[in-house]
């Protein structure tokens, strides 16, 4: 029985911003694991919905189509786990910042089948507007749109701060590398000379002891 598990790592790098609905649909082969990771900032809300896409409309999903999901943080703490379900959801406050991984796994079947999974994962700004706002009237809808735009702008602004901070860190790193390279090269010259000097001194005293010089 061939049991090849390869985890395809899909890293979702989502900035703070995610205004528009984004659900991912991917195919999960039975016996394989697919992982999606998202970079979540600390103390932000994150919600996720997942379900198996039904290829035959109108008919219920076959019982054998089941998936297992595990959501873990960058440090390995498990935040959500569900075994052999066909759909579900999770929501939690991300205390730790970093890459959160959501790994899907489908049990091996014979013949191997491909399950189409729809996964909607939002965090930060987008997790707020989860509920579909019914367009009561056009002014409300417009107000809603404009609020979303205002949130977008705020998160763009925060992202700029983040990028600026990263650039500063990188500049520090480069300066350190530069100075270390200079010092280490000068030091290598000294090391070379001192090693050569020690060699000469040691051999000279050795030969003098042997009365060869």
């Amino acid at each position, binding site marked *: 029985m061939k049991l090849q598990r390869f985890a*395809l*790592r*899909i*890293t*979702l*790098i*989502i*900035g703070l911003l*995610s*205004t*528009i*609905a*984004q*659900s*991912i*649909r*991917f*195919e999960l082969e039975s016996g394989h694991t697919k992982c999606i990771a998202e970079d979540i900032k600390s103390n932000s809300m994150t919600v996720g919905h997942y379900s198996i896409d039904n290829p035959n409309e109108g008919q219920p999903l076959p019982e054998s189509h089941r998936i297992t999901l595990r959501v873990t943080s960058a440090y390995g703490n498990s935040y959500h786990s569900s075994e052999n379900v066909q759909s579900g959801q999770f929501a939690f406050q991300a205390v730790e910042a970093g890459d959160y991984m959501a790994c899907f796994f489908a049990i091996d079947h014979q013949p191997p089948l491909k399950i*189409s999974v*729809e996964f909607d994962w939002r965090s930060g700004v987008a997790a707020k507007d989860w509920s579909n706002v019914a*367009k009561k009237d*056009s002014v409300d*809808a*417009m107000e809603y*749109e*404009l609020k979303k*735009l205002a949130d*977008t*702008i705020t998160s*763009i602004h925060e*992202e*700029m701060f*983040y*990028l600026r901070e*990263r*650039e500063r*860190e*990188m500049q520090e*790193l*480069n300066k*350190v*590398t530069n100075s*270390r*390279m200079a010092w*280490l*090269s000068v*030091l*290598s010259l000294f*090391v*070379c000379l001192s*090693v*050569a000097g*020690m*060699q000469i001194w*040691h*051999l000279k005293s*050795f*030969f003098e002891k*042997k009365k*060869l010089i």
Partner: protein
Amino acid sequence: METTMKAYAILGLLVLSNFAGDVSALSVTVNDVECVYEYVLYEGDTVSGNFVVVDHDIFWSSDHPGIDFIVSSPGGNVVQTMKGTSGEKFEFKAPQSGMYKFCFHNPYSTPETVSFYIHVGHIPNEHDLAKDEHLDPVNVKIAELREALESVTAEQKYLKARDARHRHTNESTHKRVIFYTIAEYILLAVASGLQVVYIRRLFSKSVAYNRV
């Protein structure tokens, strides 16, 4: 929510809420060819995006030679091609609506991780306004504003991905400088020690007196 995508080994992205389809920056490991599908609702929509190859540790060569990026329309025509690149921005007007395929081809055997972002933007025009009485001309302006903000966001994601790659290279440089220099010192000391030991042995009585 209408999403029709078939993802192959990776990702399918997605979509929609009101006017635009979007996918947040994702990264995918390209072994040979990886395709991502995105549904474009309206003909004439602007599809924009960017992708950056996040380098793994390359030992000898200065940079990965690059991957190929090919966009195909639902009709099978190639809309855009970029060869041998390690990160580009792209933008095109969709000639027809339907499922577009965005493929990354890796000509070399080392798997590369590609971080990409694709955005489908739609701005309602007068034709849509006439059809739907709920649409105000203000909505057109709001859509334009949203698209402009999306382009800023896209640029930020591109910068973030490039910054990540740059940082990776810098950290690797830093580590290499320290590690290889210290290793060089140790190797130098060991080599000279071995030299001394060898010479001593040549002259030692047990080998044969003055046979050298």
